[in-house]
């Protein structure tokens, strides 16, 4: 089974070296991309069926195609390396283990859209990534591989919303990290009002391989209609949490298998297939194929592909509370439903957990789950925050009611 994204990572940890990366064919993809020119790169990526790995699964080539033709002015590529979704650590894995792969990938993307400047917006806590990237950028630069590209490593100041692509652009500009309305899309009016593409780390890491091995090869890697492999993850009470590169579209059960199944003495109750802002799927759906369309059909989202499991000895209300605490804290404060709604959700859940809950609180939770949906809130944060809550209210309704009835949590 081919694992192009992780193949070069040293077994004992640490990062793939520059020499090692080049020896394995590194930067040939970039050379090829430069040789082919922007339209052909876009064509190849389109043919590869690559969909964005940042959470929304938007076809990468289609995103690029929305960039207007060059007008002589600046255009930007931005690498979204903010990764703050609870339960998600795949981008860190890729940057720590093989930084050159990202640098080559971003250089290919810059070629594809004609960007002269690229930013890596890196979560500040990822200090090892920063060190590895800095070193790798230096190496690539000295080797003359980054000619024609100004590359900035920008350490974020730490907000979940800085990962939302337009909030991220505001953050780079030194403004408050609140999202922007679309349209205009960043491709048309992004950083400093100029054409900009924001891509996720994992998305970009696929590009060197697509360029080197070709779109057909890339498509064949996948077990689904979308191309490539995926860095899947599992966390929670599994036997051994971790990350694994698998064909896109393996089943959730296979991912769980990689984690050695559940922790001894714990049974799977449900799982968030793609990180904190996806709907719970019950254990019965373990056979769902972990690709964008299949997970959506099952009633959740592939998201970042890093699943979080809920076992039978963990309180679902407590788990949702822990997530909603995060989301309420991370609301950017721009739009009313999210800014005021999420703290209310948090407080209602806290009341349930601490035994002060009332039946009305569950109604309030349902009201929010119904109301904080796309289009009603300004950005996707609040709707994302509602996905675990809404699904928990459906799947574990009796647990919520039990908290009211017994004035407390039976798992404690």
């Amino acid at each position, binding site marked *: 089974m081919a694992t192009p994204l992780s193949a070069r990572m040293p077994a004992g940890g640490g990062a793939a070296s520059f020499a090692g990366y080049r020896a394995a064919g590194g930067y040939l993809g970039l050379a090829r991309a430069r040789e082919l020119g922007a339209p052909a790169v876009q064509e190849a990526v389109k043919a590869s069926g690559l969909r964005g790995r940042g959470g929304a699964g938007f076809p990468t080539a289609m995103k690029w195609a929305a960039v207007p033709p060059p007008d002589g002015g600046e255009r930007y590529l931005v690498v979204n390396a903010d990764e703050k979704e609870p339960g998600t650590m795949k981008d860190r894995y890729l940057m720590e283990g093989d930084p050159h792969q990202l640098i080559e990938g971003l250089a290919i993307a810059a070629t594809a859209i004609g960007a002269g400047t690229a930013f890596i917006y890196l979560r500040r806590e990822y200090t090892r990534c920063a060190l590895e990237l800095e070193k790798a950028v230096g190496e690539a630069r000295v080797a003359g591989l980054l000619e024609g590209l100004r590359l900035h490593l920008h350490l974020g100041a730490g907000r979940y919303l800085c990962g939302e692509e337009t909030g991220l652009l505001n953050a780079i500009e030194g403004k408050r990290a609140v999202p922007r309305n679309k349209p205009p899309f960043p491709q048309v009016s992004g950083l400093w*009002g100029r054409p900009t593409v924001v891509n996720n780390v994992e998305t970009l890491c696929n590009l060197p391989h697509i360029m080197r091995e070709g779109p057909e090869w890339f498509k064949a890697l996948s077990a689904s209609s979308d191309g490539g492999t995926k860095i899947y993850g599992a966390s929670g009470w599994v036997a051994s949490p971790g990350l694994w590169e698998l064909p896109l579209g393996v089943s959730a059960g296979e991912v769980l298998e990689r984690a050695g199944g559940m922790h001894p003495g714990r049974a799977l109750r449900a799982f968030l297939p793609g990180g904190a802002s996806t709907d719970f799927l019950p254990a019965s759906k373990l056979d769902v194929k972990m690709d964008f369309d299949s997970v959506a059909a099952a009633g959740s989202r592939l998201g970042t592909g890093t699943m979080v499991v809920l076992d039978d000895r963990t309180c679902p209300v407590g788990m949702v509370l822990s997530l909603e605490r995060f989301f309420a804290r991370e609301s950017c404060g721009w*739009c009313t439903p999210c800014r*005021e709604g999420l703290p209310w959700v948090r407080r209602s859940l806290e009341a349930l957990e601490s035994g002060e809950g009332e039946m009305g609180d569950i109604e309030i939770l349902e009201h929010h789950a119904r109301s904080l949906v796309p289009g009603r809130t300004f950005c996707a944060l609040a709707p994302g925050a509602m996905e675990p809550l809404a699904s928990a209210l459906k799947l574990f309704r009796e647990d919520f009611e039990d908290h009211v009835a017994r004035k407390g949590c039976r798992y404690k």
Partner: protein
Amino acid sequence: MSVANIIVDGKPYSIEGAESKNLLEACLSLGLDLPYFCWHPAMHSVGACRQCGVKLYKDEADARGRIAMACMTPVVNGLRASIEDPEARAFRAGIIEWLMVNHPHDCPICDEGGECHLQDMTVMTGHVRRRYRFEKRTHRSQDLGPFVAHEMNRCIQCYRCVRFYRDYAGGKDLDVQGWHDSVFFGRTEDGALESQFSGNLCEVCPTGVFTDKVQASRPTRKWDLRTSPSVCPHCAVGCSTLPGERYGELRRVRPRYNADVNGCFLCDRGRFGQAFADSGDRLRHCLVKEAGGQVPAPREAAIAAARAALSKPGAIGIGSPRASLETNFALRSLVGADRFFVAISDGELALHRLMRDVLRAAGRRVASPREAELSDAVLVLGEDVWNGAPILALRLRQASRNAPNETAMREKRIPAWDDAALREAVQDRPGPFFVASPGPGPLDECAEASYRAAPDDIARLGYAVAAFIDPTCPAPEGMGEEREALARRIASALMRAKRPLVVSGSGLASAALVGAAAAVLSALVAAGQDARICLVFPEANSLGAAMLAAGGLESAARLLAGAPEPAALVVAEADLSRAAVRGDGPSLMALAVATIVLDHSPSATSREADLVLPAATLLEGSGTFLSFEGRAQRFIALRPCEFPVQDGWRTLDELAAPGREPRSLDGILAAIASELPELAAIVDAAPPSTFRMLGKKIPRGARRESGRTSMHANLDPRDPDPRLDPDSGLAYSMEGAIAAPPSLLSRYWAPGWNSDQSLHKFQSEVGGALRPSAAGEGAEIGARIFGGETGRAALRELAFGGAGAGAPGIPAAFARRGDALLVLPRRFAFGSEELSAKSPALATRIPEPRLFICPPDAARLGLTEGASAEIRFEGADSVPQVLRVAISDLPEGVAELPWGLPALPGAPLASWAAVRPSKEAAR
């Protein structure tokens, strides 16, 4: 302009100019009620609050629809929407419920109560019961200075305050801080808000976070305020105001919407400056000078004394740029046209007349503030618009974004109302906007290029621009390459523009600058451009006074000195000591056999007078100011005069024609129109006193006014008859007509819309002109006296100094005179204007007088920041002034001295002075 046919709640509507409208604006313009918070008519949409959610349907077959924000939805043909859809209604009520999560239950003690947009919207959505049962977030509020109170717990995070303060008005010291449900709108620390537009936060904020601190000292609900349409007396822009009073006291001043002049806003001078009218030292009695000083006298005695003094031939009158046209005219009629002067120096008057001539020749090309805001290329020649004409500056600030906005709208297909996206696309890349001035100022940040130079050099730049546009214009010699390149760049920017504008004025006391502005305008017109001009006058009625006066103070003194017999001097609403003439003020009074002063506030002049007759301020009197664009605008008394105070013009008319009833305002206006045909339009500035709506007068009081009958019950338990108003179509009553024509509109209120956001109910469409109340009535407020075809030849003659009249022509390059500095007047938003400086709140914001000089001059003269400097004006007989030095970015050889500060009255205009270190402490 495209027309879109849309369907709202099943009803078809056709929307004109759809491409520049969003659905919220369209709905409000149609008279449909749709709640909103973050949208604002002047600042447009950002989509933050989510209050304006409606249902949108894809097509006829779509029965489910989806909720979308009306303010972020472009109006396109075929759009189907529902406001009344139950799900949309529930959503909007839900938004209010969320906003109420943290909102305190303090309406009864909140100064916004009764005119609160949040209250109105809450009622509109039907949200009534609070389900939230947990703790609320709280904030510590700040002391933001004398104007604006702060109660952050009431905040609903609509972001309008920071969008106004920072984006719209360019303020720096108010911002949003914090995150999630703890977002704070304030300064980083306590302290007075720095922006001179801070008062607008009171209306921009839809809740009681920012409220009028001056009003809070004597709180009054909106429904208890009596209001009347008025005009700001504190500069020549002539913003429309809505002062409000209770128990005879001025409680507040609010902006009165005037699409052409001030739109929705006022500057802080206009808003907080009028407290002078309630000052304890107001002149409220007739005073007669006796051996021991001035003593109160009965009115009949005072009038008799005045008549006696005036019975001797040769009396002369001194009118005032801060008095109404009517008062000036009545004095002119009393003493005779050739004996009527204005209380400014001959030099200033000559400059004002030159400006008047340029405006006259410019005709329809004189820009209203609105037209100025619509310009897409601007050249400011010398004038400090920011401090001298604040609202014009605010509008110019918006103009600087027009060209880049238009590009972004075209290239990125961003709608005109998408404020955040436009700002993002444009960033702070300014459009073709050029500021030439001696020192730096806040408009520089709007400018593509700023040019720092002495007035003569700025004028030369202007003339060079004109010569590049119209090669038949003479060009200044020896400009140097750099300046020539700048002039060429400005010229081509003005030529590329669709609506270029040149701005100058009297602020630097330079006729050359006015000439240069005229030259640029004439060149643009010759080149076929749809160009406009603004010339900023210093005071509310400077232009009006210049149109009436035979001369300035020096001429008056000459006439008085040369009179065969000593004659009387009548001064109307002026303090001669403030005029920029040295020595002539007091000597004028010394020359007169008797000085009669009519004024509302005491001054150095009134204190010396032999006879003082108390005059009304614009709050008790009515009259007309002629603004800098020649717009005659009527202010109508807010409260009746208390005997013996009366309108200046009424007293003067009484003195002029003993035995006949003094004329009413209409009578005076008719006399002005017949005697001065150019001013005939002033009659139309507002409807006459006979105006009635369906037989009724327009009430000053609100229909809900409480305690009307008990207000004076301690004095007289009977319900007194309302006082009569002989001068306008307004009544001192709560009863009367419901509608009013635009220039008499005295309050904004509509069912369900208690706050001033009800404005759109009075507009023809959102953001547009006020809706006429009857057929045939104009929508414009006031009447413009200039408007004819542009006299190109006349303009050119004025610019290049033709037959004696006009500007001096192209000046020589500025050259220093040895060690002397050219001292220019610097205007301050707070303090330079006479009346507002008497307002207690505003007085705290008046800066200490300083002498501003540039670092090289300071070094050469041995002066440092804060050091005492002695300033001795060339040829001046007065004692030298000692002031502290402030180092400022000025051209070498040029210094600036505050103009008109109470601590420094009568600063000479643009004079050479010797400056040296002083051992004396500065005042």
